[in-house]
């Protein structure tokens, strides 16, 4: 079974939700921010929330925590890493993902179910989806406007590093090119602003996000 590790910082909010989502497709455990120990997990999912209070600048402080030092090494060795919302912000600040997240154009925290289009299905995160598959997943954040300088943006588009886009009319935060999720060049580190861990059960709204986790689980290549 694939083992997921979820770093927990003071101020993390969605770590339990992420744990529950991962445990539907594998085994999952929390990783304490003060420990530089990933406990041998196969996939790391950096959860949403307001790590270290989001003080200074969202996602700025966690990259210097012991657990994120270990995550950087893990990613450098090709390990699969997904950051969701604040986790995405942390991964961009840690230099593991290109670009940055800016305040929403409406300047307000916004919690809304949005439609996304899967842009690239040839990644460990999305290989179980059909090309251009449309999924419904909630988003909730204040600082989710994806930004990359033009040159970087062109490269991301050309290299297929845009993995998810907001469907037409759903880009409430003003992200450039409607980008909702990106990956690094090596395609082992991923970041999403919307929350697939809150879309794993029809009872709580939708289970469209579950396939992202099962894709990761199967891509990790651990025998069941």
């Amino acid at each position, binding site marked *: 079974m694939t083992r997921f590790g979820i770093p927990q910082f*003071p101020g*993390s*909010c969605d770590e*339990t939700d992420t744990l529950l989502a991962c445990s539907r497709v594998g085994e999952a455990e929390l990783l304490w921010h003060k420990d530089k120990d990933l406990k041998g997990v196969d996939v790391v999912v950096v959860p949403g929330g307001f790590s270290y209070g989001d003080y200074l600048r969202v996602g700025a402080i966690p990259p210097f925590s012991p657990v994120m030092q270990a995550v950087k090494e893990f990613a450098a060795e090709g390990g699969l890493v997904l950051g969701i919302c604040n986790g995405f912000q942390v991964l961009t600040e840690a230099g593991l993902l290109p670009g940055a997240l800016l305040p929403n154009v409406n300047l307000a*925290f916004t919690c809304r179910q949005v439609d996304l289009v899967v842009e690239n299905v040839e990644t460990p995160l999305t290989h179980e989806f059909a090309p251009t598959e449309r999924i419904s997943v909630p988003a909730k954040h204040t600082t989710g406007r994806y930004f990359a300088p033009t040159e970087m943006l062109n490269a991301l588009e050309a290299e297929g590093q845009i993995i998810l886009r907001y469907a037409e009319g759903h880009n409430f935060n003003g992200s450039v090119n409607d980008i909702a999720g990106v990956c690094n060049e090596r395609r082992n580190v991923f970041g999403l602003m919307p*929350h697939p861990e809150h879309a794993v059960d029809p*009872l709580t709204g939708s289970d469209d996000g579950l396939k992202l986790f099962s894709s990761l689980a199967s891509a990790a290549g651990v025998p069941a």
Partner: protein
Amino acid sequence: MTTAQAPHIALGLTDPEFELIVEKMGREPNATELAMFSLMWSEHCSYKHSKKILGQLPVEGPHLLMGPGENAGAVTVGDGLAIAFKVESHNHPSAVEPFQGAATGVGGILRDIFAVGARPIAVLDSLRFGELSSQRSRYLADQAVAGIGHYGNSIGVPTIGGEIYFESPYEQNCLVNAMALGLAPVDQLIKSAAAGVGNHLVLFGASTGRDGIGGASVLASAELGDDDGSKRPTVQVGDPFEESKLVECCLELLGKDLLASLQDLGAAGLTSASSEMASKGEVGLDIHVDRVPLREQGMEPFEIMVSESQERMLCVVTPELLDEVLSVCDKWDLHHAVIGEVTDTRHMKIYENGELVGDMPVPALVDDCPVYTLAPEEPTEQIYPAPSVDSEAARAARAAFDDNAQGILTALLASDNISSRRHYFERYDCIVGSRTTKRPEQAEAAVLHLWKQNESGAPIPGPSIAVSIDGSGRKVAADPYRGTIGNVLECAANIACVGGEPLGLTNCLNFGNPEKPHIAWQLTESVKGMRDACNALKLPVVGGNVSLYNQSADGPIYPTPVVGIVGGVPDPAVVATNTFAEEELFVGLIGPFEPTLAASELAKLIGDELPTRLPDLDLAKHAESLTLVRDAVRAGTIKVARDISEGGLATALAECSLGGVGATIDIAPLVERVSRAYPDAEPHQHARTALFGEGPGGIVVAGSREDLLALSNSAASMGFLALGTTGGQLLTISDPTGTLKEVSLPASEIQRIHGGALSERVSS
């Protein structure tokens, strides 16, 4: 302030109260003692004006685990699980600084919840501001909502429901009530009584500053200087990041069974927290103020004792567990200090650097505050002026009033108290925690699934709960007794609509100055109404809060008893939604609904005077009807259920069409009922009242034809009325009297009007 004013007067104590303190103490209190007495003998801590009448509320019930008097009430919800919940006001701080006032209101109510050992799982809020035509009201609403969102979102507790209303009596005195719910294994609930002579008193969490010292600053010694306002902040600033660590720390401490008791620091800070613990435990406490971690220098003992710095907790620990407790605090990077010990003296003794600076008998401080008998007097006429609304919707309602039902309906749908609250609730995280199975606008009440985890951590089904918070002020202003019953019934109806069995109720009584006879009358009648409604529903009051003196030079607020009910739901997958999503469903109306335009939203829009009385109601019948609806929802017979509230039946039907499917409706049966009730009125009045009249007890339901016809037989005595069928894009409501232009609106048009009105209004 005149220099001649005695300190106790400035602190809100009367001369007789001060004399009683001197008598109980056997001497005059010093500054520290006086500060502490003034807080403990305030309305907030002593309930001195409300205690006598609150005693009549029912506090027993089969599901009750913890009732009034603890930090929060609690009920059992099955599977060994308890839900702790409470609503509390933060009205005055929010009027001063809406963002921080509302934020710290949420922080405070959350601490009440984890102080009893429960993990906070949801917040709801009940907000009242002046009319949206006022720029200040728009600002206050915007900032209060932002503050609630800031705190709740950042701490990872979803805000799953609530209400927001705009009425001119709240212009100078907004209401910010927040309700929180927490989940705990029944055997992990903890009380706050201090116990074990010789045990340590540990203060942990944030450091202590001069936040919220406010009125007590008159006690500042001369060396502080009379005009040094910078030393006297009255606004508390919240830090949800600190509180998120505090939650985890407290739950870890309780999970490891390391604490003898736990108490949060709220209003009245260390004074209230420590003396309440001592009182309940029938012990004494020695407190050393010099050991309290401070964020400002030179704080005097009284300042430390009354500070309202946020995000702090107080616990009692046995000596052998102290090291382990402090190491858990260290793990979560929280300040901590052993600030005192439990004693057998039954005195609160305050020390500074070893010197005794305060010494008070605990009973004098906590129990001996005089309790006053209200002097209620029913006013001879309505004390509130007729509402006057300056909005496009109000103008449209006035233009359409005489003969155009569609015009009235579209005006109501766009009005400030009825249009979609999406503009506000989207600023709250309503899903964190993965328990929210019905989000705002998806059902009449929020529904939370209390999943558990199996051995490998995956979620497995558990019980569910429904929760709603309600409190019309205008109807209570019209008739405090019947209006309050209406509030309880509306809240209970919301719970019934999702198949919930009401388990417990929490209340927040927001009123004006109870020393005024007409306010005393409102309060007395309102509590009577709440008592009778709770008795009829067999619903215990688990606790709550009283907020008095809500008035300004313009007069008192509308009396606003806000109630929150938690209900048990056996299966979260079998819950009625509140919109027509399917074609060919049979639509009916259940309940002893007797609509009246008196004090309704329509009456407000056209500027009608408030009445002085609302129609009588048969409480037993209402209770029976709600049970019937609940059972039918649980059986899957009722698939759609919507409580008729502001804007009456036509508005409820239009809101049902927000799902995208319309309906063909004939309201003849309700018109007939109305004409029986008001035989002297004209046909157009009958039609208008049936369409837009309000009152408790009406629930629009939809289900299959066979199911609902079967239900209508058993529900005949409950006043079941067949209204029509769902289907198509249009909502049509015909008028059997032929006096009003009938309603024919596409569902998409209803969505557009209802969905966009509020954000347009607040951004204009």
